[in-house]
């Protein structure tokens, strides 16, 4: 999805800032625009400002500065109940004193819909999440996963164009979470609703989203589709935060034809792709390499690959992959992942090996 979609942007954050105490900014200069129908995830560690952004969009927090627009009109001064935004909360927030059907009926009743219309919509929403038989139950009688579905149905029953989800899968176990990830994305795409999803779980963000906004320190560090985010992280934070990552520190020697030569702290020279704007000759840099892009089998090291000596520290058999911890260029925490195949050698701690990677998989980022 194109970044420059601001003409037909459905949700738009325009230079939004937020401060709670008047001294520090929780959200610093946020610019973001979503086209209709997009599934956008706000990902980041706790305290990075992602939930605050969601709450500002929902109307429970007011922006200290800047404009939030929905469908082209500023909603800064519109109270939450007039925004018509569906919301799924972390703890579901199903009303415990109402049955499931009454819970779903609530948003329709406050919209003064007739009984027959309500019943039809409730039925459709419950069927949509495959919970048709549960209308008469109370939330406490349902399991976590079922409550999650009901919360989803309740947020969708009044057919909002925008749905916000605040870590909705946080309380579920791993298996259920994976199932629900799939169901939520399917539902959102089938219904064509625009979704803003907040999570601190990067797997969730990668598997569900059209685009992911990585938050840190009140700013969006990178806003890209999942594959770009993983393969082309723009800075060290994103590289560290998304997926597993190996970091080697050094100084940029020179940049030639789009290739940076970095001298690592132990004197080794390697070729990298200069990514971050701070990568200039003489500047310190962190070099990022994904563990699965490093090979140690001589046959598999491709031509043009850069090779380095390494010592095996630990070798862990994980079934589908081997996870090896190495000491490389003074870094004892260098991880490589190798697919389990008949021709792959199993290593033993203390073994001296040679590893290699392609210069395009090696990214020089900010220090």
């Amino acid at each position, binding site marked *: 999805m194109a970044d420059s979609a601001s003409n037909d942007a459905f949700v738009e954050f325009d230079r939004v800032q937020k401060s709670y105490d008047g001294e520090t900014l929780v959200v610093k200069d946020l610019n973001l625009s979503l086209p209709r129908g997009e599934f956008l995830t706000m990902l980041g560690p706790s305290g990075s400002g992602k939930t605050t952004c969601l709450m500002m969009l*929902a*109307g*429970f927090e007011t922006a200290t500065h800047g404009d939030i627009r929905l469908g082209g009109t500023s909603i800064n001064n519109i*109270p*939450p*109940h*007039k*925004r*018509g*935004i*569906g*919301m799924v*909360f*972390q*703890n579901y*927030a199903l*009303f*415990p*004193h109402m049955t499931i059907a009454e819970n779903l009926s*609530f*948003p329709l009743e*406050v*919209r003064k819909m007739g009984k027959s219309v309500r019943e039809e919509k409730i039925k459709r929403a419950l069927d949509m999440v495959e919970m048709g038989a549960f209308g008469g139950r109370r939330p406490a009688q349902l399991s976590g996963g079922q409550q999650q579905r009901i919360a989803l149905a*309740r*947020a969708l029953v*009044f057919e909002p164009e925008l749905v*916000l989800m605040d870590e909705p899968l946080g309380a579920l176990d791993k298996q259920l979470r994976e199932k629900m990830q799939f169901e939520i994305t399917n539902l959102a795409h089938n219904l064509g609703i625009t979704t803003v999803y907040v999570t601190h779980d990067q797997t969730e963000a990668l598997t569900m989203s059209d685009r992911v906004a990585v938050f840190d320190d009140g700013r969006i560090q990178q806003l890209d589709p999942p594959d770009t985010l993983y393969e082309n992280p723009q800075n060290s934070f994103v590289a560290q935060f998304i997926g597993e990552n190996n970091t080697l520190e050094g100084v940029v020697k020179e940049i030639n034809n789009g290739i940076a030569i970095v001298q690592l702290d132990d004197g080794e020279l390697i070729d990298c792709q200069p990514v971050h704007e701070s990568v200039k000759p003489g500047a310190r840099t962190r070099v990022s390499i994904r563990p699965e892009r490093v090979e140690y089998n001589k046959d598999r090291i491709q031509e043009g690959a850069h090779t380095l000596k390494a010592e095996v520290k630990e070798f862990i058999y994980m079934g589908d992959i081997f996870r090896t911890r190495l000491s490389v260029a003074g870094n004892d925490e260098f991880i490589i992942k190798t697919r389990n195949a008949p021709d792959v050698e199993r290593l033993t701690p203390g073994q001296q090996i040679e590893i290699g990677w392609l210069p395009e998989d090696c990214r020089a980022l900010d220090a």
Partner: protein
Amino acid sequence: MTDATSQSGPVLAADGTPLKKSLARALRLQKTRALMLIAPLLVFVLISFVFPIASMLFRSVENSIVMETLPLTVEELQNWDADSGQLPEEALYAAFIADMVVAIDAKKHTRLGTRLNYEETGMSSLFRKSGRKIKKLDPATDGPFKDKLIDIDKKWGDVTTWAVIKTHSVKITNGYFLNAIDMQRTPDGAQAQPEDKRILIKLFQRTLFMSLMITASCIMLGYPVAWLLANLPARTANILMILVLLPFWTSLLVRTSAWKVMLQQQGVINEVLVWIGLVADDARLVMINNQFGTIVAMTHILLPFMILPMYSVMQTIQPTYLRAAKSMGATNWTAFWRVYFPLSVPGIGAGSILVFILAIGYYITPEIVGGTKGVFISNRIAYHISSSLNWGLAAALGTILLGVVLLLYWCYDKIVGIDNVKLG
């Protein structure tokens, strides 16, 4: 294990004893320990709570004094028909003298007089006066007694006197309960008291009405405070909580007397109103020694008992419920009324039960600020216990009060459901 499952009999433990038995043995030590821990409280509750209440319940129907003091007379009275309008025979008078001589020796006749005086005024003095003269008679030699006794006091020649004694000679009586609901036990069965003596039903009604008023005003005043307590930041909420609990640190008497200072006609409120000019000096408001005074003072005293259960329930209501409601399009008011309020009802229920039950039996505050119009049934009970010494009636009133509370509790359980009452 295979043995145990293949047998059709009871499941056995590893050593062959039935599993239930060995489980009971294993748990016995725990149970004994638990019992030992609660033993002091159990004994205390038995002595200070169960026993007094049982004794009170019994006292409200117990009436052996007539039979014990005048055993022969009571026996003779069986043969006498009060409806005939005829005075009893000589045999009864003789039996009465014989009983009285014994009773006078043991100084029991005045107590009997007091007892019968509850039913018929003048009985107390009759027994006391006659006692002095009967003392000089010898039951064996001085007969016949009928005319002598009527000479001593002409009331002994009145059929009603004997009828009263006969009516109240039963061992277990409903007389106190009839009195407690403004009726009396007469030779012709239960009948209404004379109009000028009917005060207790009115007092019960007033007690109920005022307790409900107090409960209602506690809800009105307490709900917003509890809401603030549950929703303010912790620091501010703590200060507010101290303010709520502050009254508990002051003596009840001091607080009640303070209301006297506030509310009386020369008191703070009236003075201020007169000074502002809202009220004329000669038309000062009467705010004490009436129902208003009692309701104000008791609302103040019982308010913490309403706020605390409400607060602990409101604390458990997650703020996301309100946010969820608003995100679905509910206005602030709808979100409160449809979501927050129903969830806080258990707290209101718990607080109301607590306040209502405390209020209905309250004594000290109505006594001080209630005057005559603002007193409760409990003040009447206290009067009968300490002044008129009619403990039977006091017990009957107390039993009815207990019954009313239990009945209301039962109704509450039926309507709201006691499971819906939470203290947190």
